[in-house]
């Protein structure tokens, strides 16, 4: 069974390379086009098999062996459910030193693998109609980037994690600069350089981690062994030793997740790239950083996380929720609205993740998957809308597209509400858990984050109203598009699958939570500790008007008697 | 240390210093070459001083070697300088800065124009003729004009 794991990386890698070669040779038959879909479907199938295998083998909830006497956040041991760790997969920098590499999957990894495969499949399906030129090479590069992304999500050691992290960028450079707006070359360059500049602190931090947790056999890069050592060395860990590692990782991974203020690459990149490329970017690439936090930063630097994560990074997340929503409100380009909306939702994930509570972390992990599905669908639909309207301006839709393209309109409205956090759909579950998680730590941040609910609904509904329905102020743009029909059947079918996933996770979230929570790096023993009193009373007293406090409140509380009524 | 050795070494060091400062601060290729020779001489003196100090002949041997090499190098170097001069008609080392960064300007000293014409040099009577009998006149373009008697 574990042989399946490298196939998940090799199939898109080899397939993508073959497609690129076929594109170069200008093979004119329909074979490469069909092959692209087949390859994407094959990776999807493999990832589904992985999910089934991981679910069937059950989740061993990770435990912490020692060091529980220290209160606060305790990282858990990373223990993959299914592992691929052959002895030949290692490298020897010098004689006497051997670093073993490993691939593996647990609940979180399998979920992200599934997300990547699903999104890639959807991208290729939609690219069939929206990429006019060089479809085959586009599909090839998409598959290559999928290979890089799967490497990250399947990696169980630091070296493969870093390799995948960087390898995913190269195909993206080609994808962004090859298809999109006129300024795409500069934007692609900026995106890659910005992200790469975050890799320097990250690689230093990774090296620091390797030497922070030495084992008896010499340094190791395996996440299992590192987290095992981390839990053993819990009693002797020092904050100073971990702080610089955490800071460097925060910068490196923070650029990837568009943590304020390192986010400015996001709007321009999402706007200038082709919408199907942006779909991959927003749905999967944005989650690489969060995955890094969950796998590496939080469990392996627990003291620094406890000290700094919820205060600094959590605050940045809460600000991002409001900031992204406000900025989205001001935009008229649909791609920019969705880009800032992604920023806002990434803020929700940050809010949950950096609360370091069980609900928050699990909610963030689940929300990574949820947001991926929702945003992928939104960007694909946005691409269809742009093709049909001829422009990306939401004010140019004339009388609204709901009449002409009913399938498009229904799906768009569905995913708009999914993104706005409507209960019964998936984003609500993740957001609720994230907010609850932060409520136990910093209630003020939760209040700030909850305002993202109204702002999120505002810009989403404004976009929906302008695009789908008729408004008074509309400019009629002369449409020079060739597509005048509604969504194709294959596209509708793909998005229906996404919608079903949204509904399923929204109405029955418990199976998804059980699946994903094994990958969440929190020790279960800390969750049963009684919550400490927070500053809510101080806040409450500060804001209470004085005259109300004086009215006979205390008299009432003695009046009620409780009856046992069952 | 022996005061004599010390003084010789000091002299050698002084000459070396003069030589290196001269090399680093000059623009004229031949003068830079001169400084290099000075440095070599100073090094030779150094060897001799140590040879005298340790009472063996290796110092003197090496000094002779240095002299030999210095003269070979001088021959080749001056030949190169002459050919460089033929290309650019200037002895300024800054004229040969093609490997500089392209946004800098070369700091070449422009050769000064000679305003006075080269004087005409006296022409000697050819051997075997009496100047009083057969005087030689020089025409305007410098050609010899032998008057027939």
């Amino acid at each position: 069974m574990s042989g399946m794991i490298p196939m998940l990386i090799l199939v898109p890698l080899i397939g993508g390379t073959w497609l690129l070669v076929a594109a170069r040779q200008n093979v004119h038959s329909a074979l490469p086009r069909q092959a692209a879909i087949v390859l994407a479907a094959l990776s999807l199938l493999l990832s589904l098999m992985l999910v089934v295998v991981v679910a069937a083998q059950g989740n061993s909830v990770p435990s912490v062996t020692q060091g529980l006497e220290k209160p606060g956040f305790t990282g858990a041991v990373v223990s993959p459910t299914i592992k691929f760790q052959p002895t030949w997969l290692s490298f020897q920098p010098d004689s006497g030193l051997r670093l073993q590499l490993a691939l593996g999957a647990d609940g979180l990894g399998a979920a992200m693998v599934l997300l990547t495969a699903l999104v890639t499949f959807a991208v290729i399906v939609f690219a069939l109609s929206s990429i006019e030129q060089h479809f085959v090479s586009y599909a090839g590069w998409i598959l290559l980037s999928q290979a890089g992304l799967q490497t990250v999500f399947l990696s169980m050691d630091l070296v493969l994690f870093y390799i995948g992290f960087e390898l995913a960028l190269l195909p993206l450079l080609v994808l962004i600069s090859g298809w999109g707006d006129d300024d795409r070359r500069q934007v692609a360059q900026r995106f890659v350089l910005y992200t790469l500049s975050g890799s320097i602190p990250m690689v230093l931090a990774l090296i620091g981690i390797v030497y922070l947790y030495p084992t008896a056999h010499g340094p190791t890069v395996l996440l299992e062994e590192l987290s095992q050592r981390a839990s053993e060395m819990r009693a002797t860990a020092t904050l100073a030793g971990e702080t610089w590692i955490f800071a460097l990782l925060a910068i490196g991974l923070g650029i990837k997740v568009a943590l304020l203020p390192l986010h400015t690459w996001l709007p321009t990149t999402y706007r200038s790239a082709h919408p199907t490329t942006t779909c991959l970017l927003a749905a999967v690439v944005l989650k690489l950083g969060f995955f890094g936090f969950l796998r590496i930063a939080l469990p392996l630097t627990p003291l620094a996380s406890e000290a700094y994560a919820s205060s600094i990074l959590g605050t940045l997340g809460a600000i991002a929720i409001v900031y992204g929503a406000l900025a989205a409100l001001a935009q008229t380009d649909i791609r920019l609205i969705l880009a800032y909306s992604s920023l806002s939702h990434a803020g929700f994930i940050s809010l949950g993740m950096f609360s370091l509570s069980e609900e928050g972390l699990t909610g963030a992990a689940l929300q990574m998957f949820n947001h991926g599905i929702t945003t992928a669908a939104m960007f694909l639909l946005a691409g269809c809308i742009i093709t049909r309207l001829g422009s990306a301006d939401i004010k140019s839709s004339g009388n609204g597209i709901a009449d002409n393209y009913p399938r498009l309109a229904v799906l768009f409205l569905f995913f708009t509400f999914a993104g706005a956090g409507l209960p019964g759909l998936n984003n609500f579950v993740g957001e609720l858990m994230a907010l609850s998680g932060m409520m136990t730590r910093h209630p003020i941040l939760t209040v700030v984050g909850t305002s993202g609910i109204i702002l999120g609904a505002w810009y989403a509904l404004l976009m929906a109203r302008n695009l789908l329905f008729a408004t008074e102020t509309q400019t009629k743009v002369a449409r020079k598009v060739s597509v005048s029909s509604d969504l194709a059947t294959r596209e509708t079918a793909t998005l229906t699958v996404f919608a079903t996933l949204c509904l399923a996770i929204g109405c029955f979230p418990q199976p998804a939570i059980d699946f994903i929570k094994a990958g969440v790096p929190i020790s279960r023993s800390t969750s049963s500790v009684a919550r400490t009193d927070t500053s809510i009373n101080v806040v409450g007293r500060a804001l209470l008007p004085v005259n109300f406090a004086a009215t006979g409140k205390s008299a009432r509380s003695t009046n009620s008697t409780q009856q046992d009524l069952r | 240390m022996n005061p004599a050795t010390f003084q010789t070494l000091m002299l050698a060091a002084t000459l070396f210093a003069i030589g290196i400062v001269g090399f680093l601060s000059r623009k004229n290729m031949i003068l830079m070459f001169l400084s290099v020779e000075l440095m070599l001489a100073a090094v030779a003196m150094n060897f001799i001083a140590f040879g005298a100090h340790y009472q063996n002949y290796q110092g003197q041997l090496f000094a002779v070697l240095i002299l030999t090499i210095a003269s070979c190098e001088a021959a080749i170097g001056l030949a190169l300088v002459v050919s460089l001069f033929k290309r650019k008609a200037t002895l300024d080392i800054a004229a040969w800065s093609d490997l500089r960064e392209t946004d800098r300007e070369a700091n070449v000293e422009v050769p000064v124009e000679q305003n006075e014409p080269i004087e005409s040099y006296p022409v000697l009577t050819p051997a075997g003729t009496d100047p009083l009998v057969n005087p030689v006149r020089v025409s305007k373009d410098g050609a010899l004009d032998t008057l027939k008697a």
Partner: protein
Amino acid sequence: MLNLVWLIPLVLMLALLAGVLICLFRKGAELAHVPTIVGLSISSAVSLILLFTSQGGVHVAITEGYTWLSLGGMHVPITARLDGIGLIQLNVVTCISLLVAVYARGYMLGDPGYARFFAIISAFVFAMVMLVLVGNLFVLYAFWEGVGLCSYLLIGHWYRRPSAAKAAMKAFLVNRLADCAFLVGILLLWHGIGLVGAENLATVGRLDFDVIFDAVPALAQRQPDLLWWVGLLLLIGAIGKSAQFPFHVWLPDAMEGPTPVSALIHATTMVTAGVYLLARMSPLLLLTPDVLLIAGWLGAITAVLGGLIALFQDDLKRVLAYSTVSQLGLLFLAFGAGVNGELLPLAVVAAMFHLITHAFFKALLFLTAGNVMHAMGDCIDMRKFGGLRKVLPSTHILFLIGALALVGAPPLAGFWSKEGILGLLTLEIGNPQYGSVFAIWLFMGLLSTLLTAIYTFRAYLRTFWGDVKLPAQAGAHPHEATAMMLAPLYILAVGSALIGLVIASTGALAEFVLPIPFLTDPHAHPHAGWWLVIASVGLVMAGATIAYYSISTSGVAAKRSGVPARFAELTSNRFYLDEVFYFCLVAPTQHLSKMVGIFDSQFIDRVIRRGATIPSAIGGRLRTYQTGVLPNYALTMALGIVALVALAFLRG
């Protein structure tokens, strides 16, 4: 018997699925009403069965569903919890929905979105029923939002109209604004229960109502400020959904939706969800009397405000909308009486009573207005028609019954329920602590009674009396509604007429609802004094007279007679509250968002770009060392050698 409970939402979910399938496959759209009406009939029947077989009051029936979410500190099961309050609300919802759905079969006939309409009606009733049924506050919030979504979809049913799409968005967003506060309140409560209930791990993380009410006394003792905030935030959530001041601005605009939608959602079911929430959470609010005080004030203000604005509206549905706002204000006013803890159970009973009667007569009024609108060719502006009692005789009688019930003419339903509320207020006038407040509230309640009478009779007279005037859109012969549309109206009329009498005389409601779990049973069930009855009847007659004179003296067209023009303009422009809302909330946010957008693209980006030029700046400086001139390189070499030699010397 208990498992019948799940039949109600199940049947509605099946109706919804059937509706969705009809919409997807575009087959059988003419029959789209069938699943909805069948589902609603079954659910009404089941709720009536449950009503009549339950003992009510003390008996709380809990039925397990499935665990929606369970993780560490958070446990959210879906269970059904039925007590007296819940059963009553359930019955109101299902029965009125059935009647409105039957009416809508005739009203929406021929509409291109027929199938979609009924599918979303099924969805709405499903969400509303679940809202009433569930026993967990998180799940209640989920269906609270679901109801808001269905309201959005139904208000915007005719999405080709820009005003409808705008109104739908406004309704959803104003609701969401209140829901933000609601969610924060819920999370605070969850956190608070976690703080005080840590000893009993079984209760940690659950927001089941019984768990909440068990924990609130401890919370009141140890974290009173938190409890106050929770109460206030829950109240804000209720206000948003029930369209009280200042969140009332969405309800009049929601009249853009089809009339059955206005009748169902915006008069009887969704807007009562706020009142239902307060009734549900009354054991918690018992311990935060300040919040109930605020509720009372907001209710009183809204009651008067709604009445004032309704005076000069020209659109019949708008009059009814503001009337709804005003009547809901009365419901909140009833809760205000719960400031005195002993009165809270009675307040809940009075509120539920008025909720029932209001559901009947308001639905009746809206549906008859729908008849008028249908006959007048979708025109509902009262300036354009008149004298319709000859044209639509049955509608006329039905509207009259509804109007009399609304103003509180004895012995129709509205009289009994309104007296219940106002009578509650009279009980505590002597109280030194709240007496003056209650007196003011009583005055405002009576004022709203007067205003109700005035605007109701004005609307009635303008529509049905006077000379027959028909708008051009009405066509040649405006006809009375079909029998299918009139049948539910007759049922509603009978209800409006008799239900108050039945309930008040037998005291059945109080017996059924009380004792409310976790609240102390009041020992006395007081009745309103006679002077109050005489006062209200007198006000009704005064209002009718004023209305008659205001119409008849200067004719129907000129309606501003005798009233200062400024005041009339103020009220007909809704006190400019919409504009206030816009300028205080909407416009600043839009400006702020523009500033954020500019800040993001200009400032932060500039800083990053400046940062990106650092490497090339450093490179530029370093480049100056490449002169190409030999002596410079020689200098570097010399310095290097000196450094190495010095290093070798120092290292020894």
